[in-house]
């Protein structure tokens, strides 16, 4: 019964699907990693993704250019990040609550704007797959990794890039310092507020881009609630990956590949009640989290507003 799953075409199909499905998680979670490394957790990722998905879609629909669409999603992400940073850093509001507020704001606003500006289901010409010359010819690996659109490639390039920035640059060191002991960083002349603002805005821009991937690099359309909880999974993946790019990438790929596997199990008509495949990625994530949570490290100042006087 499971023999069909071992067919090379099926394995390639599963892995390629997994790589594609991981893209929005990678973008959003690597961005959220910066915010959390600096001490701010932004639970509003889902709302930012919704706004990114909508603005990317709408700009593409009106201008015909998905590149302008992605730009719009990045800008909207930056604005929403600025809002979140203002509330959580400057006003020092409780981060969990303000993040949920940002989520509801983005979710509602995206639906409202869609009704106002579009109002019907339609599709756009999004980004096309660009098979990388040479690389895409490699058996198996070629189709799995090198036959996607540029946003997929970009999200994988982000893994080493964010790793380098976070661990090999002075700025990355400041981010990590601010997230652990903001008081010490402050005495050394690091502006805690500026670092946190920057990190939250970067994270939010990547979340906006993750949303735009759904509308411009995946489905080429917009519908209500298109993010379907992916923003919250991205936040969970940051914990799962222990605030490191490699850990997050591993988590995102694991989750997405199991998700792809379960789709194929169903498609091939393997006779298991469908509820089991559908919940498999979530169950697996919970199991892994439970296994690794023993000595879990987290940025010590995560969720703690910084007040020089306080």
């Amino acid at each position, binding site marked *: 019964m499971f023999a069909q799953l071992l067919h090379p*075409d*099926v394995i390639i*199909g599963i892995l390629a*699907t997994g790589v*594609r*499905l991981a893209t929005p998680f990678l973008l959003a979670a690597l961005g959220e990693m910066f915010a959390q490394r600096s001490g701010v957790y932004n639970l509003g990722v889902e709302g930012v993704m919704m706004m990114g998905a909508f603005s990317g879609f709408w700009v593409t629909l009106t201008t015909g250019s998905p590149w302008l669409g992605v730009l719009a999603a990045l800008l909207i992400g930056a604005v929403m990040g600025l809002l979140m940073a203002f509330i959580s850093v400057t006003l020092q509001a409780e981060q969990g609550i303000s993040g949920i507020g940002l989520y509801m704001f983005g979710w509602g606003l995206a*639906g409202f704007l869609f*009704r106002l500006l579009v*109002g*019907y*289901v*339609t*599709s756009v010409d999004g980004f096309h797959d660009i098979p990388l010359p040479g690389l895409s010819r490699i058996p198996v690996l070629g189709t799995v990794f090198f036959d996607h659109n540029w946003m997929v490639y970009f999200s994988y390039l982000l893994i080493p890039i964010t790793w380098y920035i976070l661990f090999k640059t002075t700025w990355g060191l400041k981010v990590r310092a601010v997230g652990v002991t903001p008081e010490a960083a402050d005495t050394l002349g690091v502006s805690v507020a500026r670092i946190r603002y920057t990190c939250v805005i970067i994270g939010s821009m990547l979340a906006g881009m993750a949303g735009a991937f*759904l509308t411009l690099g*995946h*489905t*080429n*359309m917009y*519908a*209500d*609630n*298109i993010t*379907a909880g992916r923003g919250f999974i991205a936040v969970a993946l940051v914990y799962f990956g222990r605030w490191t790019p490699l850990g997050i990438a591993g988590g995102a790929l694991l989750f997405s590949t199991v998700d*792809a596997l379960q*789709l*194929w199990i*169903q*498609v*091939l*008509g393997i006779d298991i009640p*469908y*509820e089991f495949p*559908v*919940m498999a990625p979530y169950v697996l994530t919970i199991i892994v989290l439970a296994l690794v949570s023993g000595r879990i490290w987290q940025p010590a100042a995560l969720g703690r507003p910084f007040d020089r006087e306080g």
Partner: protein
Amino acid sequence: MKRWSWILIVVLLLTTVLTACGGKQEAQTEKIRLALILPSTIDDMAWSQSMYEGVMAVQKEMGEDKMEVAVSERLGNPVDAGAAIRQYADQGYNIIIAHGSQYQNVLEEIAPDYPDVSFAYGTGYEAHDNIFAYDPQAQEGAYLQGIIAGMMTKSNIIGVVGPVEAGDAIKYNYGFQQGVEAVNPDAEVRIAYTGSFGDIAKAAELAKAHMDAGADFLTGTAQQVVGAINAAKEHGGVYWLSNDMDQSSLAPETVISAQVYHWEKVVQQIIDAHQKGETGKHIVLSFANGALELKYNPQLESQIPQEVKDAVEQAKQQIIDGTLTVKLPEN
């Protein structure tokens, strides 16, 4: 200027109040105030939009002065919907339609508190007192579409993009399988579910997996299918059989046929029953009573062989006159 606008507002308010009072005194046929609770949005191109259009059609026929419509969208969660339903009932709406099987329990709880209000939900069949249940026989059109797919498929692989195994989806998929089986026992119907009603990205991915696995005919239910239809359109070389409403405008080269729900007939029946003061009924949508319809996409109709159309027509007549019953799962 400012004073004038104030006077204007007062006059307007007074007129409204006075006309409202006047209306009440001479009301012979009570104005219908209908509230519609939707799990997704009025432009979802599927389940919710089809019902919304049905309600609007009835309103157009009755006239806006005789029927007032209020809509609340995105209330997929029955608990949130319950709050909205109570508010509508308190505000004096006399017909409240909660468009989904998930609202049954909520209505059971609320309806006894408002005996003068008529409530409706569906897909469902348990109707009593002031609760109406409407019940599209989705399996009937599904059977007919199964005949189309079964006779026309070349790969003998047919993919179903399902939402959650419940209500309408079960009936549709069950009927569809029987239709395919009746004309082409060698064809394989592969049913898969996304586990969601609205995740269009997942639906698109599921459609891609079906097509990669060789399916050349695809079908599915719920509002998420728009993602799958678009994936099929971009893939090319496959046909989509749509449900709920005619979705061919999304992909004129891909959507070959549609089972269309004529909700306006259901809404009209509920209004009539309400006005006559009748108790809740089980309202069936079927081919026999004309509330279901199979539509071919005019742009692709020429690609359907005559023998397929004949087989569909014959089965449709048999369903209508009762010689063919499309089975439903037992329970």
